[in-house]
């Protein structure tokens, strides 16, 4: 029969009981480009073979040719839903390399920006779980508040999504009053909307039946696969970089680390929701702490890394020389190798930097959480239905830019 029709069927496939389905690289918009070739027995999935690399942009090789301040836009494009966290992580890595001490106000402002980015990332993930189960309303509703977060970012750094926010040593400009007003407006209006979003999904019969018991993973398997972040916390292990290896003043904040029990889609959804509430509480605490600090401080005193004020560059000789040296890469950069990790939207985002004292890094490796836990996807979906596989994929918050990088 297959000789008459002009179809290229694989060898022996007519006798097989299973079908091969290509859940191809072009998904309906939301998830990103990765391919899964599923072997299915009717509606059940027997096996899956994921393929990644469809958006491989050679970040690590590019980073070997760029000076330290030019690598920040590259880190933006890793987990682009929460790019400020990536930026801050990179700045902290370089500051660790040069043994820089930052003023408290800078650390707390960084905490505010990182928590806003975390809220933005979790909002995308949770609303997309809703979209995949057919509920588009939550997505449309929640994106309005992401616009408010974008407005705060825009006020500070000028850009909405790929922010390139901050500099090595602090921020490029002080937070204006308008930025704080916009932040306060977000803090005032968001809780009510978040509660409405939760009312829509948390005890919704259809949502619960679609997500409970689906896509679960045991805690030991999760650890063996290198899970971190909300996906690991949903299995019951409370490992959070903000409490395990505190950075940027997180040790001064009082927040809980929410954990789940079974690691299924419903638990991941609830853990992310709880983390959004914790982030709101952290931002409130940070705003309180900033009130007592000197409001003119927005960067550390790092003449070898932080570009001087433009007005000074045009009038003072020292500032001009420092500007020249920093841009041309003639300041002293210590050699060494270090690893620094931050708690990104998906878990431990690590930067392994080997510096040889030159203008550009010798080797920069990103420990990308999405890449590491996507390996577990075939094991998670084996035996489940196709629609469960789709919901699981969206609940793992797979961002293609972070998988490939």
């Amino acid at each position: 029969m297959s000789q008459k029709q002009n179809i290229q069927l694989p060898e022996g496939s007519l006798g097989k009981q299973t079908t091969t389905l290509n859940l191809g690289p072009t998904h309906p918009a939301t998830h990103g480009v990765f391919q899964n070739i599923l072997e299915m027995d009717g509606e059940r999935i027997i096996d899956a073979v994921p393929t990644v690399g469809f958006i491989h942009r050679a970040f690590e090789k590019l980073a070997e040719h760029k000076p330290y301040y030019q690598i920040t836009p590259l880190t933006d494009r890793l987990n682009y839903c929460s790019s400020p966290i990536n930026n801050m992580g990179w700045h902290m890595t370089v500051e660790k390399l040069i043994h820089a001490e930052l003023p408290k106000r800078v650390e707390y402002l960084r905490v505010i920006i990182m928590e806003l980015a975390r809220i933005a990332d979790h909002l995308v993930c949770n609303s997309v779980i809703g979209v995949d189960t057919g509920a588009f309303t939550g997505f449309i509703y929640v994106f309005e508040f992401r616009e408010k977060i974008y407005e705060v970012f825009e006020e500070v750094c000028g850009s909405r999504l790929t922010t390139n926010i901050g500099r090595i040593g602090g921020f490029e400009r002080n937070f204006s009053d308008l930025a704080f007003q916009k932040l306060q407006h977000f803090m005032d209006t968001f809780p009510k909307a978040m509660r409405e979003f939760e009312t829509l999904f948390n005890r919704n019969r259809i949502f619960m039946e679609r997500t409970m018991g689906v896509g679960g993973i045991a805690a030991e398997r999760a650890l063996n696969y290198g899970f971190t972040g909300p996906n690991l916390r949903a299995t019951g292990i409370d490992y959070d970089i903000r409490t395990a290896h505190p950075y940027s003043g997180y040790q001064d904040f009082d927040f809980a680390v929410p954990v789940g029990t079974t690691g299924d889609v419903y638990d991941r959804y609830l853990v992310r929701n709880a983390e959004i509430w914790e982030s709101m509480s952290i931002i409130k605490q940070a705003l309180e702490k900033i009130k007592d600090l000197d409001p003119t401080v927005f960067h550390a005193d790092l003449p070898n890394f932080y570009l001087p004020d433009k007005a000074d560059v045009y009038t003072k000789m020292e500032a001009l020389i420092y500007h020249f040296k920093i841009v041309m890469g003639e300041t002293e950069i210590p050699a060494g190798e270090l690893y620094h990790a931050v708690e990104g939207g998906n878990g431990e985002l690590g930067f392994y930097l080997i510096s040889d004292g030159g203008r550009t890094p010798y080797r920069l490796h990103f420990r990308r959480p999405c890449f590491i836990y996507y390996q577990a996807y075939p094991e998670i979906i084996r035996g489940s239905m196709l629609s469960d596989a789709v919901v699981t994929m969206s609940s793992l918050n797979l961002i293609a830019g972070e998988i490939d990088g």
Partner: protein
Amino acid sequence: MVEPPQGFGGDGFFTMKLSEAVGLARSNSLWPLPFATSCCGIEFMATMAAHYDLARFGAERLSFSPRQCDLIMVMGTIAKKMAPILKQVYLQMAEPRWVMAVGACACSGGIFDSYSVLQGIDQVIPVDVYVPGCPPRPEGIIDGFMRIQDLVKAESIRRRESDEYKALLNSYGIQ
């Protein structure tokens, strides 16, 4: 109020050029295919959301099947591994079809001047509108969409059979 199109009308009839009528109908009901690969895809999601609302322009129904769409919006970096897939999706589209390259990576490779990134999708498919930006603001994406609408309105209904268009497709190896 919108101006009526140029034509001659009377009691119960209205005559206008066929290409203008067809163009008007097409441009206000384009069905886009969001080929979103990376960060520009998230800005597209913001464009589709309530604040910037692309649906006002007629793009209410996003089609994820290339067989049913008019406009492919390539948003994000296209790596060399992805290029054959992009070409395959483009080939599956039915005429008339338009292509919009959103973002610096789709226009020219963007900031990724590396061995694995295709330096612009116009190396594999013909592009109608380029929207620069990294990522472009939703207003920019909407502006690009409006340019596509202008192109659609003004297009001659014989364009797709013309020799020039065939020569363009041949230069890409598309029959």
